[in-house]
């Protein structure tokens, strides 16, 4: 897919990987609607390129999604590219001994992570694909998964959500091929974003890095380049591209 003149939605585009991807898409000539809950960077993101605009939306709420997607279509008229990138990382064992004693995984946190990392992908894609089908748009959906989809100790909710994202990717690739809509995924390993440092802590990250053959974290621009290549390659479909420095081999 040639990006010049195309329109894209990047969820979670206000920070980290999504922000890098937004810049890269705009550089290649695409118009980009960023959807995010965090509005703090909206002004600076819009100032970087006149091809980008930002919309506040909580992606766990399907009603807000419907409303905001309508606003995006009013402005862009069509959307060929949807990148479901928004997500939260949460680590906690099912049952563990902590410095406060024995503690089991918080049930509300489970619900929040599943809603944010899995249900939002479902709501968002259903809403956009309905429009794509009605407009007979040749499009591509890229879901940002994680190597945690294989099951990371200490990340029940996050791993389950990302495994769900992989299953949706395969399911939709089979369902939507007839409509000329590709669906694929990108699964980063541990990447150098603010939220990774905040959630993992530097001690845990040092241990993770020691297991990566390249002995470093991925950079947001390296991950965004992988996403871009999936968007562009018209024969990449139904599969998950892993970009993890060789962590899982």
């Amino acid at each position, binding site marked *: 897919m040639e990006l010049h003149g195309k329109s894209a939605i990047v969820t979670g585009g206000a920070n980290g990987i999504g922000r890098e991807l937004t810049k890269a898409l705009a550089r290649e000539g695409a118009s980009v609607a960023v959807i995010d809950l965090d509005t703090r960077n909206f002004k600076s993101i819009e100032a970087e390129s006149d091809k980008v605009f930002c919309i506040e939306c909580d992606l766990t709420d399907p009603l807000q999604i419907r409303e905001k997607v309508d606003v995006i279509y009013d402005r862009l008229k069509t959307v060929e590219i949807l990148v479901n990138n928004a997500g939260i990382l949460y680590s906690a064992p099912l049952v*563990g*001994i*902590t*410095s406060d004693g024995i503690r089991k995984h918080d049930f509300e946190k489970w619900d929040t992570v599943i809603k944010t990392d899995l249900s939002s992908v479902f709501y968002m894609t259903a809403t956009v694909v309905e429009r794509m089908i009605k407009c007979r748009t040749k499009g591509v959906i890229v879901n940002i998964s994680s190597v945690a989809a294989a099951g990371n100790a200490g990340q029940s909710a996050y791993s389950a959500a990302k495994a769900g994202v992989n299953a949706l990717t395969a399911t939709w690739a089979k369902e939507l091929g007839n409509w000329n809509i590709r669906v694929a995924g990108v699964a980063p390993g541990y990447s150098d974003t603010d939220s990774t440092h905040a959630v993992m*802590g530097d*001690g*845990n990250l*040092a*241990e993770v890095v020691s297991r990566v053959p390249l002995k470093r974290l991925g950079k947001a621009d390296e991950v965004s380049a992988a996403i871009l290549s999936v968007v562009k390659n018209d024969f990449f479909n139904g599969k998950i591209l892993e970009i993890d420095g060789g962590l899982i081999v």
Partner: protein
Amino acid sequence: MEIETLIGDVLGVDSNQVSDSLAMKESDRWDSLKHMELIVALEQTFQVELTFDEIVAMRTVGEIRRILGEKGALT
């Protein structure tokens, strides 16, 4: 094997940094998953079986030393 060496190996820190006052609460390397790795390593190395209450109590190096001592594992 010395307790300090074993704990240092499991937590990935130099054994010189392992003192009795080292506590789970203050170490960003000693989380609940590492705690269970540590318990398994202690049980195997010192040939002891720890009770649940002992596992929960072993949240400082001092407590680990005390409990292993009480079980006669350090003689």
